[in-house]
């Protein structure tokens, strides 16, 4: 009897394998340079110019530059991870993932992980270029805690992306509408271009459910002197940290639940027959 691989082995091999097409895709299909790199860069800088035109306080330029960097990660989660199953269903790949012994969680992690190279490149470019161009000054002493918060935010964000992706196992058109519908409000509520403080306690409190909101606010407080305080950055960090298991549990349960529903109603199957 041949020994069969452990669940853990299947998991990490799937993560690497699903990341692979994303990574080699970078060199084989260069359109991303345009759509995922140049466009967002220009978009963020345009926002800076708007603020400059309005004679906003200088710190706002820093808010926008950091927000632009974070937006890259948010969009990666929402669009490449969240909607992945919709693409995969169309050509029958979802079906092959589903019949194999691997898990959807591993597939999603690999997919988003592979896209991370491009996302990080974009975020770094925005932050470095933006900071030089608009002469943003940072409090470098705040860098270590800011990096810590960033990693926590990313983890929570991935849970949220997985939760969203689970909807695409069952729904298709409806889930796209949802993705479209939440994109702008999230960009606004999470304070990508201004501090959450400006939203007030209630709206800001509700917006805190989006991990980017508090994570970004804490990073700004650590790095940009004079950022208006929404909550104490330590508290914000704790809340983001708590959102990690929250979204992880929700995502895993939702994936299980949606898979059963999808099997019941034939939604895993692409209709070519």
């Amino acid at each position, binding site marked *: 009897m041949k020994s069969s691989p452990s669940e853990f082995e299947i998991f990490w*091999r799937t993560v690497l394998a699903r990341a692979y*097409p994303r990574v080699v895709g970078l060199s*084989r299909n260069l359109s991303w340079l345009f759509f995922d790199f140049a466009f967002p860069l220009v978009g963020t800088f345009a926002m800076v110019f708007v603020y400059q035109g309005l004679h906003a306080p200088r710190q706002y330029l820093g808010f926008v530059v950091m927000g632009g960097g974070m937006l890259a990660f948010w969009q990666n989660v929402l669009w490449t991870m969240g909607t992945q199953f919709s693409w995969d269903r169309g050509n029958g790949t979802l079906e*092959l*993932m589903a019949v*194999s012994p691997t898990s959807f969680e591993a597939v999603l992690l690999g997919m988003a992980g592979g896209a991370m190279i491009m996302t990080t490149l974009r975020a770094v470019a925005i932050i470095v270029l933006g900071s030089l161009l608009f002469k943003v000054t940072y409090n470098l002493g705040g860098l270590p805690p800011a990096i810590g918060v960033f990693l926590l935010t990313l983890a929570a964000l991935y849970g949220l992306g997985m939760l969203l992706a689970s909807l695409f196992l069952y729904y298709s058109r409806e889930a796209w509408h949802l993705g479209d519908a939440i994109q702008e409000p999230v960009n606004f509520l999470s304070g990508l271009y201004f501090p959450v403080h400006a939203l007030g306690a209630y709206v800001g409190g509700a917006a805190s459910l989006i991990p980017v909101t508090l994570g970004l606010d804490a990073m700004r407080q650590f790095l940009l002197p004079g950022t208006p305080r929404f909550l104490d950055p330590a508290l914000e960090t704790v809340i983001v940290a708590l959102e990690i298991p929250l979204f992880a549990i929700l995502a895993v349960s939702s994936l299980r639940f949606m898979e059963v529903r999808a099997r019941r109603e034939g939604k895993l*199957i692409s209709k070519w027959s």
Partner: protein
Amino acid sequence: MPRTPNPSSDASRLAVETRDLGRVYKTRNETVTALSSVDLKVREGELFGVLGPNGAGKTTLIKILVTLLLPSSGTAKVDGLDVVREFRQLRSRIAIVSGGENAGYGLLRVREQLWMFSQFYGIKSKVAYARIDELLERLGLASVANRQISGLSSGMRQKMNLVRGLMTDPRVLFLDEPTVALDVGAARDLREEVSRWMAEDPTRTVILTTHYMQEADDLCDRIAIVNRGRIVIEGTPQSLKLEVQRDVVVDLQLEPGVPVLDRLREVAGVGAASVREEDGLDRFSLLLADDAVLTNVISAVERSGRRVAGLAKREPTLEDAFVKLVGRSMTEEETQ
């Protein structure tokens, strides 16, 4: 290439067993019964064919057996595992390859994509590459191993899909119309590889659906004919042909004219009749109870004013059995 099932395989072990299996699709405005009361037993080591026209329920049956679709009623086991309750263990033991399959990522190369799918089964990369290379070689794809998938012909693509199905060494392999729309050569290569793979290990099982008679006849140890979600009959290709053994099979060619198929079916002693058009002639296949019926057939044709272009008796085929059992030919069903 007919296969002899290996006598050393344990015939008491069942690779597939369904009991009263049914599936209903509910859409907004209709309810389709795709499968009903399917009782199937496939022994380990068999190459089992599911033969039926489009819409018969073949794909639905396969999707239930590979755990992608839940049955509406009844139960199914594959390799001894329940497809609903024990689907997690089952998934590492099965594989599916469907005709016209387009899965994967077009920017990957053949070898890369196969490796990617192998990782979903947790196979060590070195082992996976060794198997992939061997199978690519066997299917004559070694020269395109490093070609991007988006540049493959449909024949090469389907061979690559078969490699994907074989490389994980499944206990039960499901092939859903694997040769549909392929050219003759590619289809033959695929069938040959399936036979070879089966011959290597007497405990391997293949469930193959098809609407090609010849494919079922050539390849399968046993066949179930399905129509409208039900199994009409089950047996070896030879035993199904016995269904029409006593009948006289006649090919009748008529020059174009008024429709006569229904009239021919009404002639006493005509068991079944089907027609296809080729080279400007209507070619009828008739199953007659005995030679004497032929006289009545000819006079029915003459009364309709159509002219006979040719007439010949021949050996019964699986197609004739199908027409007799289902009441119409495979192609007739398709064009509905």
